[in-house]
């Protein structure tokens, strides 16, 4: 209070001129009294105006910023929740993939086993058929050999027969055969 009073007193002093005619204030720091009064009034006026017209936009801006920050926080929370959900889905998918892999492996093994079983069965059938065919071929070959042998025997017998007959046919027999033919044809009508 004493400081303010001292200021006001000092401010009440009038400026004066020095020896060189230059205006000199009463204090190198403190303004004149009137300047303090007008300055104070204008400052208060400015503050009032600022409060009246500047505070609402500032409040509004702060509120908007607060809202924006809250929205960002909400978005972050939502993103976090989504990421966690996605992570859960991925984990589940990973589990599903593993399950699918196991299922596919099991199916492949089952199919391979079925193929093997089927192949073995088919092989056995083919083997049996081959054996049967081989047996039939052997039997046919044996029959053929028998037939060929019989044919050869007949051919040889035929050739021998022809040779024996040709040797038997001397001139007299030939003439007898011719005479016999002529007589037989002559007798027929």
């Amino acid at each position: 209070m004493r400081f303010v009073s001292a200021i006001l007193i000092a401010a009440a002093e009038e400026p004066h001129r020095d020896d060189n005619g230059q205006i000199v204030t009463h204090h190198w720091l403190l303004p004149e009294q009137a300047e303090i009064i007008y300055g104070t009034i204008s400052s208060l006026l400015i503050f009032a105006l600022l409060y009246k017209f500047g505070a609402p936009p500032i409040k509004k801006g702060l509120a908007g910023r607060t809202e924006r920050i809250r929205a960002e926080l909400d978005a972050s929370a939502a993103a976090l929740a989504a990421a966690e959900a996605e992570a859960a889905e991925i984990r589940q998918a990973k589990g599903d993939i593993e399950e699918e892999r196991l299922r596919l492996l099991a199916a492949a093994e089952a199919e391979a086993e079925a193929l093997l079983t089927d192949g073995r069965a088919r092989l056995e059938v083919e083997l049996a058929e081959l054996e049967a065919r081989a047996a039939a071929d052997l039997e046919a070959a044996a029959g053929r050999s028998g037939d060929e042998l019989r044919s050869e025997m007949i051919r040889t017998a035929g050739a021998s027969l022809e040779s024996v007959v040709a040797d038997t046919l001397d001139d007299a027999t030939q003439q007898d055969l011719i005479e016999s033919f002529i007589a037989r044809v002559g007798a027929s009508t």
Partner: protein
Amino acid sequence: MSDEGRIDGYARALFEVARAEGTLDEVEDELFRFARTYESSDTLRDALTDEMVPAAMRQKVVEDLLGGGNATPTTVQLVSMVVGSGRGRDLPAIIDSLVQRASSSKNLEVAEVRSAVPLTDDQRDRLKAALTNATGKQVNLKVIVDPSVLGGIVATVGDTVIDGSVRTRVDQLKSRL
């Protein structure tokens, strides 16, 4: 012209030449025997039908075979003409057609007789009479000596075949075997 027409044309020409010469019976018989020889001999058939052999050479083969009194000059000339014209392959068919034509001109039926041994003239006459009696047709007897018959005779008159050959009996026996 078809082969049949060409063969018939040659046969008619040969027939007219032989008849004009007055040696039809003899020529016909010689040609018939030559045709059977031709059929049974692969070598002769090859020599007379080989296009690589010049025609003059083929004709010389014919003249060597039938010449020298083996056949009448007319027969030699006729065969030589057919072979020289490159129709050697058709020779049997031409001759058969000629024989058929000659027989028809005399109202005779060709009787082809195959025997393992040659027939005597007496046997020919009696066989001819027997075949005439059996078929009711006058026959023009053509005897072919064919050893494959083995024994006996096979006579063919038109579509009728009278088989008294040993060959047929042997074949039947083989079949039964």
